[in-house]
């Protein structure tokens, strides 16, 4: 917006100008607070993780397959936590990607306006369910149900929480993917219909390829959600670090390790205390890379249309 032209009498009003400057400055400070938070996150995680890495070599941290910082024989390999995180995330994706994509295509291409207006609030309510409630759901309802199908399943396993996490991220995928599908210009749909294509053919062969980078971005951002999800896995996956990709076993994720340490007595400055910051730093790097990748893919999509 262009700067307004102010009358001489008002523009020479000193008090008025000072007030305006002061207000603008305080608003600027509020906005800059976001930058402060980001820097604080990086600073805190790095400064607490540095002493940890002086104690443990980065090589050991990244290659050792045992993680027991709170036992007498200490091992500091992040891999068991990463394997737990990846396994639960993978299960969540198997559930969420098909369900989310189908929902998105349905909402964007098939549903009438009225149906869409009814379904979107339901998805929003699903997003609003607190994760601790989802955790209860995974432990008390989903795992017992799975045990009926597969009796050997232990009470704590990665399958149940993985599935529930999948249900949790369906709305994210659905709404992000739907946004990008609806952004595809109407002319492309009309072109397809004019050639005699049905709705299904148009959705699959025209709209989905056109919106593919937006859809992929939705998947990537959903992965980032799943990787950072804490309470579901902390409640239902067990909190024992376990280097395995087997979904029926129990395991700790990066996030549930942080929770399990925080639940015990934290000795400020101790190696256990530092280890959660090292784990947190790993998590931050993982989600940051995913988010950047997601935003880049999305931007590429936005530039196309």
């Amino acid at each position, binding site marked *: *917006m262009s700067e*307004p032209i*102010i*009358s001489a009498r008002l523009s020479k009003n000193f008090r008025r100008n000072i*007030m*305006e400057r002061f207000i603008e400055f*305080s*608003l*600027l400070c*509020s*906005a800059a607070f*976001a*930058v402060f*938070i980001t820097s*604080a*996150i990086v600073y*805190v*995680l790095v400064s*607490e993780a540095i002493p940890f890495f002086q104690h443990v070599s980065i090589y050991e941290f990244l290659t050792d397959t045992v993680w027991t910082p709170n036992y007498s024989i200490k091992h500091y390999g992040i891999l068991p936590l990463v394997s737990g995180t990846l396994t639960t995330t993978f299960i969540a994706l198997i559930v969420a990607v098909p369900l989310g994509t*189908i*929902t998105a*295509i*349905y909402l964007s291409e*098939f549903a009438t306006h009225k149906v869409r207006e009814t379904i979107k*609030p*339901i*998805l929003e*309510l699903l997003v*609003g369910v*607190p*994760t*601790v*409630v989802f955790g*209860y*759901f995974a432990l*008390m*309802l989903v795992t017992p149900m799975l045990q009926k199908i597969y009796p050997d399943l232990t009470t704590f396993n990665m399958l149940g929480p993985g599935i529930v996490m999948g*249900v949790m991220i*369906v709305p994210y995928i659905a709404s992000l993917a739907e946004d990008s599908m609806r952004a595809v210009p109407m002319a492309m749909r009309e072109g397809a219909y004019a050639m005699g294509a*049905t*709705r*299904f053919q148009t959705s699959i062969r025209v709209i989905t390829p056109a919106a593919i980078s937006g859809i992929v971005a939705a998947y990537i951002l959903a992965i*980032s959600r799943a990787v950072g*999800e*804490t*309470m579901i896995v*902390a409640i239902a996956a067990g909190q024992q670090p376990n280097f395995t990709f087997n979904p029926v076993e129990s395991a700790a994720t990066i*996030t549930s390790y942080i*929770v399990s340490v*925080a*639940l015990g007595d*934290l000795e400020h400055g101790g190696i256990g205390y530092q280890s*959660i*910051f090292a784990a*947190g730093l790993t*998590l*931050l790097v993982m*989600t*940051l890379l995913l*988010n950047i990748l997601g935003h880049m893919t999305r931007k590429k999509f936005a530039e196309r249309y």
Partner: protein
Amino acid sequence: MALNKKKLSALNDLQTIREMIKRHKKNDLAFAALGMFVIASLTITLIVLFLDLVLDGYPKFTLDFFGNFPSRRAARAGILSAWVGSSLVLIVTFFVAVPLGIAAGVYLEEYSKKNWFADIIEINVSNLAGVPSIIYGLLALGLFVYSFGLGQSILTAGLTLALLMLPIVIVSTREAIRAIPVHIREAAYAVGATKWQVVINHIVQYSYGGILTGVIIGMARAIGETAPLITIGALTFIAFLPPSPVTIEPPFLNLEWLNAGFTVLPIQMFNWISRPQHAFHINAAATGAVIIILTALMNGAAIKLRYNIRKKIKW
């Protein structure tokens, strides 16, 4: 003869085409059915989740449950300290996140010029929304609890949740402001208003509903947020109430509650889930029902509000 053959093949073609159309229409229908099925199963999941909590926790919906402290005996345990703690923490969160978030949103939409600094702020805001909540817990542990020496207090918890809520408020403020057409601003400037007068008397007033929607959604998220509060080391067994914020004697306001230890509803629920005895799981379910009813009501209100705004306001 030749004509007949042509006619026949055309007829054949027509038939195959019709069959093809039929087949593809069937695909259309099949996909629509599939979509409905997926959405129905998501809805059913939501309902089952809700019913499961309510039915499991049903025996605990008594006044005692809301008026008792947690206890080692499941039957006597209640959520008094948890709901008081949740309310106090949310008060702090509200008073920190809302002014800061609106101010930041207003700055980014109305004041900031397109330069590198605005870009940096913008990238930061969208990035903060994607940071896992537990990372905020680690930030609060390192910064608020130890560097600032605030301890595991209500103030720390409120600030932590405020950081989580901030991006939501900023984004909703910006969206609401963006919907206000430029001629509103021009009219105000034309009668000699300063930028700040335009913002406070017009922009904020007209975007009020949209901002409120974001605030409600943010608060609903803050109620259910567990991981960051566990990370700052929030105690789970609290059998006392923080000092009352309001006193009978002047100055009527007491700020000691900010430094008190606390527990909140989701942490109390997590604590009860983690116990092996089934009796505690009933308590957990009842607490979960309270949380999910609260968040569902708030989210519902926000959705309704947004719907009304979209319907009513036509510039």
